[in-house]
């Protein structure tokens, strides 16, 4: 008997070793596109949505492009190596999709002047490094209107990640949206110091719900808060991608990042030689941010109100940050009718008046 088992082992090992080697066919003039993701594709949030962009790219160009993605790349010392490996492997254009990849992207870009780099959410550019980002705050303002109208306890919970301008402007925009339709609204904010940690996110959601919040916002990547809202029979706003599957009743709407069209246009530019280093910050009007279909709970009049804000923002008629506007400490920030500059917006490090609590530093 043992002999027999031994034979099986040996044969098995031989079969494995002899398994056909899949050789890589030679590609004729394909454009190679690389993507670096900070989370797993399965986060159903930030990285998932970038990956949807990659899939759109494949659909648009078929076998004229070859795509590669590397997921779960930490923003620390590993990022530079991964980006360099992609550049060395002959990728023509590389999208690095998290803020922490900024300096590594620039360092690698210096060594590969013929490769084009696209860094998402950063602010440093060079001859072959572009930056691109979405005006997420526009969507948060619209979602804030829905949340302000839908909250019965007048308490809205907000799960925040890190106190950087991107997150702070999101909180402010959501608050201003809610406040515009509900003067009594209060925000409760929990900082979780992570972009992706389903456990922590769920804990924060639970704490907020226990404190009376009946609509949850999140600036983190997993659908954990949405799931908890569904369980607790409260409402939530989906983040980065449509999270309806995780909260069929809970989701009021979701802010869906639509990277696909941007990726298609940039790869096209790289193909026809018109690529230049640019800075793109598009929002609802540029079809980079979509507002998902209203949840079943949202009544028609609320939907109408939110749709008007959405369309006005898209057409440029409305800017969420329009004066008069004071900072939390009561000092003046914007005069009546004044619209915030992109520079002030992208460095925002204070709460607007009316938000309680202290912004962590």
């Amino acid at each position, binding site marked *: 008997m043992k002999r027999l088992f031994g034979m099986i082992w040996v044969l098995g090992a031989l079969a494995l070793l002899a398994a056909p080697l899949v050789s890589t066919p030679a590609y004729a003039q394909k454009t190679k596109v690389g993507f670096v993701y900070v989370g797993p594709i399965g986060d159903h949030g930030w990285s998932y949505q970038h990956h949807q962009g990659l899939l759109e790219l494949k659909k648009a160009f078929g076998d004229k492009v070859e795509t590669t993605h590397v*997921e779960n790349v930490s923003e620390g*010392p590993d990022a530079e190596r991964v980006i360099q490996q992609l550049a060395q492997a002959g990728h023509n254009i590389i999208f690095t999709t998290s*803020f922490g990849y900024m300096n590594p992207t620039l360092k690698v870009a210096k060594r590969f002047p013929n490769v084009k780099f696209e860094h998402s959410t950063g602010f440093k550019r060079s001859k072959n490094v572009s930056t691109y980002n979405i005006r997420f705050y526009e969507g948060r303002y619209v979602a804030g209107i829905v949340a302000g109208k839908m909250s019965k306890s007048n308490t809205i919970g907000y799960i925040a990640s890190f*106190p950087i301008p991107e997150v702070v402007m999101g909180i402010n925009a959501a608050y201003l949206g809610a406040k515009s339709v509900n003067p009594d609204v209060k925000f409760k904010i929990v900082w979780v110091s992570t972009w992706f940690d389903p456990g922590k996110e769920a804990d924060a959601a639970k704490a907020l719900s226990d404190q009376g919040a009946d609509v949850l916002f999140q600036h983190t990547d997993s659908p954990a808060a949405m799931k908890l809202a569904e369980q607790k029979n409260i409402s939530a706003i989906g983040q980065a991608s449509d999270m309806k599957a995780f909260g069929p009743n809970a989701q009021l709407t979701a802010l869906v990042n639509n990277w696909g069209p941007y990726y298609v246009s940039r790869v096209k530019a790289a193909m026809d030689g018109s690529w230049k280093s640019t800075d793109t910050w598009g929002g609802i009007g540029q079809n980079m941010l979509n507002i998902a279909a209203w949840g079943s709970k949202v009544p028609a009049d609320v939907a109408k109100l939110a749709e008007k804000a959405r369309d006005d923002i898209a057409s440029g008629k409305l800017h969420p940050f329009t004066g008069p506007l004071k900072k939390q400490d009561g000092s003046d920030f914007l005069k009546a009718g004044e619209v915030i500059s992109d520079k002030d917006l992208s460095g925002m490090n204070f709460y607007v008046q009316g938000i309680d609590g202290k912004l962590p530093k």
Partner: protein
Amino acid sequence: MLKLERRKEPSKFMLYVTPFVAVVLTMLAGLLLFLLLGKAPVQAITLIYFTPLTSIFSLTELAVKATPLILIAIGLSFGFRAGIWNIGAEGQFIMGAVCGGAVALALYEVQGIWVLPLMCVAGIIGGMLWAAIPAYLRIRFNANEILVSLMLVYVATLLLSILVHGVLRDPDGHNFPESRLFHDSATLPILIENTRAHLGIIVTLVVVVIAWVFVQRHIIGFQIKALGDAPRAAKFAGFSENRIIWLCFLTSGALAGLAGLFEAAGPVGQLVPALPVGYGFTAIIVAFLGRLNPIGIFLGGLLMALTYIGGEGAQIAMSLPSATTSVFQGMLLFFLLATDILINFRFRWISKKPDSLEPAPVSLQQAE
């Protein structure tokens, strides 16, 4: 029949052979795994284990990745030999980076050849001070050093976060939580152009040699071993346990701090919240993979780094999921622990005898 039989004494041969057996078993299991996943198994294994060894760039990256692992693991191995468990090297790593990095940022306007040595000293002191906390609490209050050192990791992580959100934040960085990039004389010199191979690699090699000599030849190396193997005997022999605790914690803190500073002043070049990526914890695995022996740790660190870099390469070339790397590291440990049984036991074929009705305990006794 296959029988597991206790050896009279642990096998020295197996002690050194089982890590290699574990590697081979991991590869075989990997082949099976890839076959089940429908990926070309031989190509995947080649990409993970061999391709990184074929280019200068990936070889230098291997060294860059292994450097902190080896440095930290060597420091930890002293304590582990003595039965003193510093689980918080990750925190000491962070504090080394913070202290050394703070010096670099304080001297932002100043260039000079002495800046980098000063940073190294600050990094070492930072790591030592952080490690001194669990050592002191253990000696003074008999507090469990495993818990204290582990908890301090979270404190260090948050401290780094506070600093890069506050006083150490880049003033021109749009409020984003990261420091300025260190200037040239605060950055480790690069050994090979267009790679990230930095001076820290050389320092690590020197540390490996020193540690090896120390363990083999120095009386304190012997005392540490004695304390771990036979604590009572060590006490009777007059070895001071407190002194060994201090020594082990300060050494591992110093090396972890130095590793942190190398990471900040080398591959990263600034302080960022994502600086710690778990080297302090992975180094624990490396220490045991290397049998707490400096040369073994050196090889173990390289192997661990290889699985990281090979895993990334396999992701790029074959779109394998990133979990591949973790699965491989997990399998490696699993097989190492599983084959460790061969150190104290051995397999023996015992042919079935007609009188095999004999009760089992007796035959076990006979085997002993």
